Structure formats: structure tokens, C-alpha cells
């Protein structure tokens, strides 16, 4: 229930006069249900405000007027579904994004991992793989790569293919080099790639212990027991209920004292898992399964 602060009636110009947020909720949930039942993509529990924004961008781009109109196009015209899939998949990522995280990982997690004979890591929602290559570099520099296996998964085939290729835009190498240094890198960043006409090709040795594979956090199950699970800036696109479900999946998939890493603005505070983990090192979102 909300207070009506405005004394003025809704303005009559623009789209304001006919907008009904309750009806829009119905339309959006019907559209997502239709997409799920017809195409099999399950966005029904993605964060509502974020889905709404993306749908309206598509509606405007197509010159349509309502969610229901968009629904008709999506269900009858598969290329429109392709467009929507691109709209709904936000794949932005970077190498050594949040350098302070990687520094904390070196300092607080690597010593724990040293005590294991074999280390399994899972990058869930790895997008085009920049994070995976960053972690491989870090493990190599710490002398742990040869006894590690990294499972890198995403829902999106296109980004996984790029991740496997390991070619990243040359014009970002400056930024990545700065990140790498700030992250506590021990060598020259340029040791890890060769510049080619179409981009920076990363050393194939970095992926020799990486398995890239399709995995949908909404519908697929756990597939191994891990010492480290990293899922950064993926669950922000989910609603609270789905976040809770995925946290359950991660909890199940972590070995005793396993490490869970979230994005820098994600929290366990709004999940039911908070008491199952201890936070390692203050501001970084590194948690250890405690019970």
C-alpha cells in the first residue's frame, strides 16, 4: 500500500495517462510465461525492474506501444525472440575487474588452497571469460594452476565460444594492465598474450585446465563438488526467490570450508544463507562455508 504524495492528477500528455503498473505486471508475467513455454528460456524469476526496463527498450526500438504487442511479435516471430535474448543477456565483463578482490583472494584464499592436493573452481556466469583467464593467471603465478581445474559455465553459447577463443579487444589491454598491476600481478601483463590484427590472443596454456560448458543456474543441477565457486554480477539479474534457490545450489556444491565469491555489491544479507558462511576479509565478497 502506498501513500499518494502527489496532489496533482497524472499528467495527460505522453504515456502517463493510460499506464497501469498492475496491468503491466500481468502483461510481463504473461510474456515471460509464453517465452518459457514456447521457447524454453526461463526468465520468469529475473529481477522485475531490470526485465521491465529491457522490454520497454525493445518496445521502443520496434515502434510498438505495449508489452502485449511485443508478446505477439515474440511468440509469432522467432527472430524477434533472438533480439530479446540479446536484450536480456548482459555480458559486460573485464579482466581483473575489481582489482582489490584479486588482491584479497591472493592474500586470504590462496594460503587455504595451498593445503589442498587438488583444487576445483567453478566460474558460474563467466560471460566471455575474462574472469576465467584472470583467475588462471593468478593461480599460475601462485604455483597452483597445475593442480587446479576450472569449470567455466554460462547460459549463453555465443559468449562461451568467445571465451574458448581467448581473444580479447586490444584497446582494453591498457585498462587490463592497470587492473593486473593493482591486483598484485607478479609479471608483465604482456607476457600472457600476443597482439594480433584482430585482438589480443591469450596464451593457450591458460586454458589447458579449463572446461567451458553450458549451464543454466535456473534449471540445471550441481555437477561436482567445488573448493571455490565464483558467481559475480550474475545473480543481481535474479529476483530474491531465484537468488535463494541458486544459493542453495552453491551451498550444496561447495566442499566443506569451500569458498563462495560474489560481486562487489552483492550480499548474503538478503538471502537465507547468511548464517551458513563466514565472511573472509571485510569489504570483499569472499565467504567461507562454515556449517
Amino acid at each position, binding site marked *: 500500500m502506498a*501513500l499518494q*504524495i502527489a496532489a496533482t492528477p497524472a499528467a495527460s500528455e505522453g504515456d502517463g495517462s493510460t499506464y497501469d503498473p498492475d496491468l503491466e505486471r500481468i502483461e510481463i508475467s504473461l510474456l515471460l510465461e509464453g517465452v518459457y513455454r514456447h521457447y524454453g528460456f526461463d526468465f520468469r524469476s529475473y529481477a522485475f525492474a531490470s526485465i521491465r526496463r529491457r522490454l520497454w527498450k525493445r518496445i521502443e526500438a520496434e515502434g510498438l506501444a505495449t508489452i502485449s504487442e511485443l508478446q505477439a511479435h515474440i511468440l509469432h516471430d522467432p527472430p524477434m525472440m533472438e533480439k530479446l535474448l540479446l536484450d536480456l543477456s548482459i555480458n559486460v565483463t573485464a579482466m581483473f575487474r575489481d582489482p582489490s578482490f584479486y588482491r584479497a583472494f591472493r592474500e586470504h584464499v590462496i594460503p587455504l588452497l595451498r593445503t589442498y592436493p587438488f583444487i576445483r573452481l567453478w566460474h558460474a556466469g563467466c560471460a566471455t571469460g575474462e574472469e576465467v583467464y584472470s583467475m588462471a593467471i593468478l593461480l599460475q603465478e601462485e604455483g597452483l594452476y597445475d593442480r587446479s581445474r576450472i569449470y567455466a559455465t554460462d547460459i549463453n553459447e555465443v559468449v562461451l565460444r568467445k571465451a574458448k577463443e581467448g581473444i580479447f579487444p586490444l584497446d582494453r589491454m591498457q585498462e587490463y594492465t592497470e587492473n593486473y598491476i593493482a591486483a598484485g600481478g607478479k609479471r608483465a601483463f604482456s607476457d600472457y598474450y600476443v597482439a594480433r590484427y584482430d585482438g589480443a590472443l591469450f596464451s593457450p596454456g591458460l586454458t589447458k585446465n579449463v572446461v567451458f560448458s553450458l549451464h543454466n543456474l535456473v534449471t540445471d543441477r550441481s555437477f561436482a563438488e567445488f573448493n571455490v565457486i565464483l558467481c559475480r554480477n550474475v545473480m543481481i539479474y535474479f529476483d530474491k526467490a531465484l537468488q535463494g534457490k541458486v544459493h542453495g545450489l552453491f551451498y550444496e556444491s561447495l566442499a566443506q570450508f569451500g569458498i563462495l565469491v560474489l560481486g562487489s555489491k552483492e550480499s548474503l544479507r538478503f538471502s537465507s544463507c547468511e548464517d551458513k558462511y563466514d565472511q573472509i576479509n571485510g569489504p570483499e565478497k569472499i565467504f567461507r562455508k562454515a556449517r
Partner: protein
Amino acid sequence: MTASASIIVVGASWGGLAALSRLLGSLPDDFGVPVAVVQHRSKNADALLASLLQDVTGLRVVDVEDKEALEPRSVYIAPANYHMLVDWGHLTLTTDPLVRFSRPSIDVTFMSAADTYMTSTIGVVLTGANDDGSRGLRHIVNRGGRAVIQSPESAESRTMPEAARIAVPEADVLPLDEIAAHLTSMVSAAQAKPHVRAV
């Protein structure tokens, strides 16, 4: 009837820290409506802004994390390098592409607030050297919400308030020092209203 089920969104850019300190510092400690703030800043900025603002207000200042619950007597600061969307009772973050060179974008937050809280939304545009916020403020008024703009004369940088005034001629334009009192009276008038409307 809960006053928390409505929202004030504030956008600021160049000169924003000083303006926000003045504005938030003048709100009463029992201010009943959550205030969500978007201040443009560099992508590596940390939680410093929240702690600086906490020093000047008795309200709880929160450096927002994903799915942060909206509560009265609280000020929510959009984190650097994320867009902050208002949803029913909470905030959602995204790493969607920059909007008109900004992330966080004021327009993005304002529009999501208007689409969620409709007539119970108040948008406030403060000082800044670009035109972010004016589309969002227009959207708030189109949805039946209210608009407040810092008068360009009282702004360290007048570009953003001027752009907002052109986009939303019906907005209340006030000197910085009068905005807190104006918001307080708008909110308490709404609370006192007998015919409170459920949304």
C-alpha cells in the same frame, strides 16, 4: 498505511557532495520516506561518499547492495559503476551499459521509481554539468509524481537544473536551502491526507 511505500529519488552530479550534504543535513531525523540518491562519480569510487554523508545526517546512510530493502529514515547511495533500479520495496543493481555516458544514470533510477511508485514518487534534480535526470524527471511527472529542481542560481553548476527545468516546466524550482523543508511538508501533507490511496 506505511510511509515507506513511497520514495524520493535525488540526482546530483558536479558539485553534488556539497549540495547533498546541505539537503540531507536539513531533513529531520524521523523523515518517513526512503531517499535514493544517484551521484555521478568515477567508476572506482568506494564507499567514501556514504560515510561523508553519514557525518551530516541522523538518517541511516546506506551504501547500496543488490536487493537492498527500502525503509523509512534511510538514505540509499547508488554504488559507483552500477545502475540502481527501484523495485517494489527494494533496490536492484545492474551492470547494463552506460546511459548517456553515465553509470549510475539518474534517468534510469528516476524512471524505475516512477514506474514502480507512480504518484508516490518525488524526483529531485540538483547541481550538475550535464543533462542527466531531465528525462527521468519528465517521466516521474508523466506518471503523476512530483518534481523538485534546485534553482540554477543556487547551484554550483547550473546546467543540470536548467535542463530539468526545460523538460519539466511544472516542477517546483527552489533554492537549495529550501528543498528539505519543501520535501518534509510534501511528505507530511501526504501522510495527513484522509483519502490515502492504496496502490
